[in-house]
């Protein structure tokens, strides 16, 4: 039986009168790539912010690695990595300096830090450009650097908020391959938000569908197809069926 690393119960967040996330209950097993699917503005980023403890829930509960997001958010951030809506790289600094800073923040000892920076930059094909200012890089390279930063301190869970958004198809496919390889190599649990259904179908062993802050379905991609009650050909068809049905209610 899989251990659950992320568990939410009726997690809710309001911004004044707007309900961004309402009564969300999900479970993410260890060692999986969990796809959190939904259209733009459906509450995916808000959920990640709550799970990382940088946004307080209005009500409900959430645990990551057994730590409560309200009480123990520092412990969660210590054990997790994140690539959020923007790559968040310091563009005036070199790639190496970006990782050096986050390595220091993570408390990696100097010898391990240097070795680990070299390891992650090499594994993502960025080592040769490590002294370039990150601001001169393409969007795809910055995304890769952000992935390198997210896994630098060997986290147990990483949160990836639409990591291939804004990338051209070739760069997106390359990053997807790198991600799949990283998960295999590092044994990390990945919480991946996306509105790219083919991406989710390729990468994720379990998915949840959210719309207007409300959970519509969760399970394996096959289970999601089955819940729609149609012989949908793809996850995308199942997703559209779920979202359209919810809009009509």
């Amino acid at each position: 039986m899989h251990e659950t690393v992320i568990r939410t119960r009726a997690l809710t967040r309001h911004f004044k009168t707007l309900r961004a996330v309402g009564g969300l209950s999900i479970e993410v097993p260890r060692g999986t790539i969990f796809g959190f699917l939904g259209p733009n503005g459906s509450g995916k980023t808000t959920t990640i912010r709550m799970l990382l403890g940088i946004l307080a829930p209005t009500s409900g509960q959430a645990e990551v690695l057994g730590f409560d997001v309200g009480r123990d958010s520092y412990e969660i951030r210590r054990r997790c990595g994140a690539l959020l809506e923007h790559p968040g790289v310091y563009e005036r600094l070199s790639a190496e300096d970006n990782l050096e800073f986050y390595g220091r923040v993570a408390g990696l000892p100097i010898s391990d830090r240097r070795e680990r920076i070299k390891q992650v930059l090499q594994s993502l094909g960025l080592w040769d450009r490590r002294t370039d200012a990150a601001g001169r890089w393409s969007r795809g390279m910055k995304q890769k650097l952000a992935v390198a930063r997210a896994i630098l301190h060997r986290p147990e869970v990483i949160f990836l908020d639409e990591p291939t958004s804004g990338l051209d198809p070739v760069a997106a496919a390359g990053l997807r391959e790198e991600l799949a390889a990283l998960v295999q190599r590092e044994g990390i649990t990945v919480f991946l938000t996306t509105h790219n259904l083919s991406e989710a179908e390729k990468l994720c062993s379990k998915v949840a569908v959210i719309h207007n802050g409300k959970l519509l379905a969760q399970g394996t991609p096959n289970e999601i197809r089955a819940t729609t009650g149609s012989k949908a050909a793809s996850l995308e068809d199942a997703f559209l069926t779920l979202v359209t049905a919810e809009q009509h209610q």
Partner: protein
Amino acid sequence: MIDQIRAMIWKEWKEVLLQRDRSGTDRLLRTTVAVIVFAILVWRVGMAFVDRPSLLLMPAFILVFCVIAVVADSFAGERERHTLETLLASRISDDAILFGKIASAVLLVWGLMFLMLIAGLIEVNLMRSADGILIFPVHRVISTLAFAFLACLFISCVGVFVSLHTSTVRQATQVLNIGFMVLGFAALYASISLPQEWRTRLAQAFTTDNLMRTEFSAGILIFIIDLVCLAAARLTFRRHKWNLV
């Protein structure tokens, strides 16, 4: 937490000092202009730079604007460049971010002021080489550096507070520049509007006999104000309570 504060200072200094988004020529030009302006000022005041107490604070006025420029960028800059959320999602503590940003601005500008005092002293000595080596009175240097430190700390705390609540660096800089100018003019107006008796008392407080006691009292007062500002900034900056991104 000390290691995280040091990491924060390292990152801030590296971003300020090794800005790669401006050309080297541009930076060289700005530095050269600042050095020339300062050298002309010292040349104009001559010996008084060393022996007249108030003139030792001359570099401090120039550096007030440096503190504002550095500190306005602290949170508003991170927000503008979309790096704040990633920073908040890391394991760095709230206090380490806050104290790291304040310390980097204070130490950078305070260090610059120290260098300017040394540079000014060398210039005066070169101009008056026939009079032997001139040095600042020790207690004057200590009080100048202490006041400059406390003033930098005050501006940094207020600056961080403003930067937290503004969405762009430009907005934060404008609010701080206008705010401190209003504060300066208000203090000036208040001092000239005082009754004659009070002004006489104030003048007496700054005579040589009473100066140290006045400086000590003023130093304690500014230190308390700094502590209050620091506590206010600390209460404001709690990542889970505010939607800081």
